[in-house]
């Protein structure tokens, strides 16, 4: 009796797995996932972003970008220093505290700089996370699994760029529930979050929301492809990255 039931469960399980996997095995990454990969999805060996601060540098310039990012990702607007932000702006001395000189060109000093997660090549946040809730994808994006996160905030201590936010309270209290983006999950309290380089948009072949909203002032592409738009601007223009001495190899570049 027992044996029979076990055999039945086994066969049923195998059949179900077979049904799920078989027709899509060739499409899905790794061949095991029953999830269908969008064939229009954007691929890269190493995603990177270049922000042209000569073109986009005031709070008014950035407002639509921040709004685009925060609205499609359901990022709550919380007052005070327990806030959550994925992309925000800061003056030069806060964005590049190590690369400051007292006689810096006034125009450079007066610009605002967009700050977001740098999707570092050597991300300390991944190194310190005790649950692998923060992990680096093969395409260089440092992603997060909010369901895995225990909220220890070690990654916040580890990130040298202050790119992470913690949900100290219930984030949905600070969201306009009418204007939610139903296609992106809201978060629960007690987990960390940050910019995800719009993986969900790349997966359907779209560029990140802030890039789309920047009218060409932000370039996004594959750092490993010498012909990519990103590599082209990096060749032609002088760029800097935040805190080079931290050794994290950020993927966000700034044209000064």
């Amino acid at each position: 009796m027992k044996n029979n039931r076990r055999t039945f469960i086994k066969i049923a399980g195998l059949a179900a797995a077979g049904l799920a996997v078989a027709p899509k095995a060739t499409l899905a990454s790794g061949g095991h996932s029953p999830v269908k990969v969008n064939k229009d999805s954007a691929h890269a060996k190493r995603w990177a972003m270049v922000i042209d601060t000569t073109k986009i540098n005031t709070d008014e310039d950035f407002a639509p970008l921040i709004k685009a990012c925060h609205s499609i990702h359901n990022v709550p607007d919380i007052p005070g220093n327990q806030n959550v932000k994925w992309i925000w702006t800061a003056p030069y001395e806060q964005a590049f505290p190590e690369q400051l000189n007292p006689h810096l060109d006034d125009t450079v000093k007066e610009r605002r700089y967009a700050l977001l997660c740098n999707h570092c090549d050597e991300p300390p946040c991944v190194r310190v996370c005790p649950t692998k809730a923060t992990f680096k994808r093969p395409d260089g994006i440092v992603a997060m699994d909010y369901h895995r996160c225990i909220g220890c905030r070690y990654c916040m201590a580890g990130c040298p760029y202050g790119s992470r936010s913690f949900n100290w309270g219930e984030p949905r209290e600070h969201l306009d529930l009418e204007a939610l983006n139903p296609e992106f999950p809201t978060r629960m309290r007690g987990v960390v979050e940050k910019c995800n380089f719009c993986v969900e948009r790349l997966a359907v072949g779209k560029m990140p929301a802030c890039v789309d909203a920047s009218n060409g002032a932000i370039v996004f592409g594959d750092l490993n492809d010498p012909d990519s738009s990103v590599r082209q601007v990096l060749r032609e223009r002088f760029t800097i990255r935040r805190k080079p001495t931290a050794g994290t190899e950020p993927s966000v570049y700034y044209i000064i």
Partner: protein
Amino acid sequence: MLERALKGSPRYYGWIAFLLVVIGLGAAVWINQLMVGMKITGLSRDVSWGFYISQLTYLVGLAASGVMIVLPHYFHNYEKNKNMVIFGEFMAIAACVMCMLFVAVDVGQPSRMLNVVLHPTPNSILFWDMTVLCGYLFLNLLIGWTCLSRDRAHMKHPGWLKPFIYISIIWAFSIHTVTAFLYQGLPGRHYWLTAILAARFLASAFCSGPAILLLVMKATEKFTNFQMPKDAVKTLVKIIIYAMCVNMFFLALEFFTAFYSNMPGHMHSIVYLFAGEHGHTEMVPFMWAFLILATVCLILLIPPRWRENQKILPWALAMLIVATWLDKGLGLLIGGFNPNPFGTITPYWPTGKELMVSMMVYAIGALIVTVLFKIATDVKEELNEAQALPCGCSTDDECDCTAEKAEA
């Protein structure tokens, strides 16, 4: 043996009841934290760890410090410590439990804590910290309980225990080293990014831990017949002094490195803590209080005449405990987060609710210490070891009470 914890004087029961009330109150606040989230704390986006984690850091030192009694006894056959060893081990048990509770109250999703075990991540120091803490708790439970049961039965300590004791001595160093590694090695946190952080942690643990233990033992002496052997106390105080001197020396090394090199990153946190920066001076009084208390306690402890005065000693030890707590508990944590990654300052101060939850954890620790020490002192009394003599000596001292009495 546990039944011994149930029989006690009304004062003993009163104390236990008081602790239970504190635990109850703290638990209510903690439940509130679970319901509404950690927004009840004073933590922020920039200072993401606070009072809870700093207590963990400090108490790991208390757990590790028991080794300063165990080590002379087992490695150097220092017999005078014989009757103190069990208290060091029991203190370590309470400290380990408090450490784990502080981790538990600090995470945003405690129900997912098991993820650390389910998805072991060797590259994360937090994983190792949990591992070594659990291991140390287990070792101390095993050793402490076995030794005490054997003592009570007038039996020798079993031979198989020896390897565990030696492992536990080395393990004690590891728990505090690993806790230092939690901080050490994070790029961008200059105050923590120093190779001697683990050494500083150990030095500070080996003075503050035994100091706390001595004070707790002094209280124990008041309420029981237990009396610490005089020589054991003397040795322990010497260890405390040496460790405190080394601790202060290490701090001086940090100052030298920061200011002689003139590296902004290394100087900023220290300047913020000791002098204030960008108009933020909230830490300055505390850090100077630390320096002053540290100096005064060393002045009181170094001359043998004063440190052997049992009236002065508790005060000097209390100062030392406050000083090391200000340095390692408060300054180290806040100085690591400030200046924040943007070079600005975000002040942090624990909220009343945070303190209530912390009180709960401390009360649980005190309860464990009370119960375990009660059992241990009962057994010692039964064996007539380290018992108080009328003249204030311990039966372990070679002291002829009658002679002294005659003199007086």
